[in-house]
Each structure stands twice: as structure tokens, then as C-alpha cells.
């Protein structure tokens, strides 16, 4: 490891998170393990099962692209999900792990969940989502234990081996663990998109109480996942608000999400929030989140408006359309980068990363991508 280079990159990152001016705009590339495997020429259907190929492929993208920091992505090891007979995450014909529309909690079970969420998760939700956990004892216990071993020897091992890459390329990996906002936790696997969409209309009070009930569990999981350090952020992808009415967001999503952010920050944690979809109508809420502790990534919206509303509160990133890198000319790409840094860079608090996570090698034109990064290196100095 080149310790000096690592420290320079880390310092650059710390400056933007605290909304200060760094020496230059830091860069982070949202390359997933799936992208890395595809880029390295491996078929996802088989290579997704092989941790050595995943690590080798990630090494290749760190060799070929210029980074300051990296937001770690989960490798959803198929063998772990297969061990448990998962209905939640299933490998498709293309090799990608898909999340089918499934649910583990029935609508009339809200009171039970609210009274004791962890017990309900153990006894009702998990057996419905994982076929092997639905077997009679002791087979369910054997499956549970095998799953735990599989989790540790695949996903646990993967996160351990990412340290090799961090050291080899002197690049701070800035996240440590993932959790969901309480509403998203209820929506994703407990009630599903369809279920929660009905619940917000038919049983809003129970949805609100369920969010309150699972908040302590999510806080515990988050605190366990990340130490209090600026380069060990808790990654929180935010899913449902673009699909909610603003009045439902205000009553059902926002209170426990805000509380969660505040508690985590009070406990010394830093947050990497990925605002999926368009959050423009929620900007006045977002600016109430804890100041100078958050990396906020946006997909859509007017960068000028976001800079104006949130620029003094949190570090902003995203907005740069990946579609230009894929379909535009090199000149288009550089012009867009210039336009964005003219808006976002003044005063610091800006980190460059495209608006979308990169999943496949044909999501980008490599020459365009590297031309943008090269431009930022030259023109992104303060």
C-alpha cells in the first residue's frame, strides 16, 4: 500500500463529507461485482458462484479505472441463498441475482409484528421466505446453521478479501455495512411493493407502528455494522418515497427514517444515503437531516436546486447521467462534466460519481468514462 496516496485520498474524502473544500474533486466509481465479472469476460451464471473470480475481477477494474474512494457493494453469493432455498434472491438466466416480488408477513399480522417484531421475523417471516427454514425441527435448525456457515464463508469472506484490494490500490473503501430505512425494511421483504402500496391506504396506522417497532432492530444492526468513523459509513439505499404520496411520506416514511439518521449520527456514525429515483419534492425534508455527516447520492433532479437547498448541509454526489457515457461522444461527456462541476464544485462538498450503479460492461463506454475522469483530474482542482 502507498500510505501517502491512501492518506491523500482519505483526506480529500473527509473534506467533502464535512462540506469543506478539498484539494480536488474526489472520484468514486459505482462498479458492482457483476460489472467487474462481466468486464473481466466471465459469464455471470457460473462466475457469480466463485469468490476468487469476483476478487480477481474487482482487481482488474481497480487496475483499469482511477478512483479516490470506493463505496463497497454486496456480492449476493448464489450458494448462500441456495443453501437456504431462498425465495427472496434468485439467480436469473442472465446470472444476475433477482429479487422477486415475495412477502413474508401477511396484512393481518401487523399487530403481532408490532408487539414483537423479532419473534415474528423468526417464526413467521423467515420460514416463508426461505424454504429450508420452513422444514420441521430439527431440519430447520440444521438449515439455519448451514446458512450461517455459508453466509460467513461467502459474503463474510468477500468483505474480508476486499481489504486486499483496498491495500493493493491504496483506495479507501468508505462503507461498512448496509441497512434500510424502517419503511423500506417493511416494504422490501415483509410486505412487498404490492402489499405496502395497499397498506398505506388501508392500514396506515399499523404501517407507522410497524416502522416504530422495527426501528430499534435496525439501529442495533447498523451500529453493529460500522464503527464510528468517517470512512466506515453505513450505506442506506432508499427505495420507496418516489412511489409515495407526499402526505404518506410525511406520516409514514419520514419520522422513523429521520429518527434513525439522528440516532446513528448521535452515536458517531456517518451515512451514505442513496436517494433512488427523483426526490425533488422532498428536498425540504432532506435538509433537516444531520449536518455534515452524510454523503447523499441522487439519480435525478436539477443539480442547481439541490446545491442551493442541500449544499451547506451534506456532501452531494450523483446527477451525472450514465447514459451519456454509454451513448454520447467524448465531447458530450466532457461538456456535461464541465456543466456539472461548474454548479456543484464551488464551496466544496461535492464528490463525483455517476447517477446510476454500473451493472454491466456495456453500461459504459470505457474511453468516454476515462476521458471524464481525466477531465476531472485536470479541471477539478481547487
Amino acid at each position: 500500500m502507498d500510505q501517502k496516496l491512501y492518506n491523500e485520498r482519505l483526506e480529500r474524502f473527509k473534506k467533502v463529507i464535512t462540506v469543506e473544500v478539498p484539494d480536488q474533486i474526489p472520484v468514486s466509481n459505482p462498479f458492482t461485482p457483476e460489472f467487474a465479472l462481466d468486464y473481466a469476460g466471465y459469464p455471470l451464471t457460473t462466475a457469480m458462484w466463485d469468490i476468487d473470480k469476483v476478487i480477481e475481477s474487482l482487481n482488474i477494474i481497480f487496475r483499469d479505472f482511477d478512483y479516490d474512494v470506493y463505496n463497497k457493494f454486496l456480492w449476493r453469493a448464489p450458494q448462500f441463498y441456495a443453501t437456504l432455498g431462498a425465495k427472496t434472491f434468485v439467480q436469473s438466466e442472465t446470472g444476475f441475482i433477482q429479487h422477486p416480488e415475495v412477502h413474508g408477513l401477511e396484512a393481518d399480522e401487523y399487530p403481532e409484528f408490532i408487539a414483537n417484531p423479532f419473534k415474528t421475523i423468526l417464526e413467521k417471516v423467515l420460514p416463508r421466505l426461505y424454504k429450508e427454514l420452513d422444514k420441521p425441527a430439527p431440519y430447520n435448525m440444521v438449515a439455519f446453521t448451514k446458512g450461517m456457515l455459508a453466509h460467513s464463508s461467502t459474503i463474510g469472506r468477500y468483505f474480508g478479501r476486499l481489504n486486499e484490494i483496498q491495500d493493493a490500490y491504496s483506495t479507501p473503501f468508505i462503507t461498512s455495512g448496509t441497512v434500510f430505512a424502517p419503511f423500506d425494511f417493511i416494504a422490501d421483504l415483509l410486505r412487498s411493493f404490492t402489499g405496502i402500496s395497499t397498506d398505506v391506504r388501508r392500514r396506515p396506522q399499523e404501517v407507522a407502528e410497524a416502522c416504530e417497532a422495527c426501528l430499534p432492530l435496525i439501529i442495533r444492526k447498523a451500529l453493529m455494522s460500522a464503527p464510528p468513523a468517517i470512512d466506515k459509513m453505513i450505506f442506506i439505499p432508499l427505495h420507496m418515497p418516489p412511489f409515495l404520496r407526499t402526505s404518506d411520506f410525511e406520516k409514514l416514511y419520514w419520522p422513523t427514517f429521520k429518527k434513525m439518521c439522528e440516532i446513528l449520527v448521535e452515536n458517531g456514525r456517518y451515512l451514505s444515503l442513496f436517494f433512488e429515483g427523483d426526490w425533488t419534492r422532498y428536498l425540504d425534508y432532506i435538509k433537516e437531516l444531520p449536518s455534515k455527516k452524510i454523503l447523499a447520492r441522487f439519480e435525478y433532479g436539477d443539480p442547481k436546486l439541490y446545491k442551493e437547498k442541500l449544499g451547506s448541509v451534506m456532501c452531494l454526489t450523483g446527477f451525472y447521467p450514465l447514459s451519456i457515457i454509454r451513448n454520447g461522444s467524448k465531447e458530450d461527456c466532457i461538456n456535461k462534466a464541465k456543466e456539472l462541476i461548474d454548479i456543484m464544485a464551488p464551496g466544496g462538498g461535492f464528490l463525483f460519481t455517476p447517477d446510476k450503479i454500473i451493472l454491466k460492461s456495456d453500461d459504459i463506454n470505457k474511453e468516454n468514462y476515462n476521458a471524464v475522469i481525466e477531465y476531472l483530474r485536470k479541471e477539478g482542482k481547487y
Partner: protein
Amino acid sequence: MSDKDTTIMSWEEIKDIETTLPDDEKAGQHWEEVNDQFFNYVMSLLL
């Protein structure tokens, strides 16, 4: 870092965890008391 440095649980540790499996009412009733590894694993199944 070599593979040996990563945390793969021993059978002894897994056996300890078995004592807090769902059949034991305490695991669900008093979630604050279940051990961290058990809790972390259960929550990771829903993320």
C-alpha cells in the same frame, strides 16, 4: 490479507448459536438478549 484472516465460524461457535434458535422462546421474546452474531445473521436475511 489471506483467507485465514477472515472470520469463518468454528463448529463450537455455531453450536452455541443453536441454543438461541427459534424453538427457544427467549430468542424472539427478548431480542436484545440474543447474541450479536445470531442477531446480525437474522437481520441480514432481510436485507
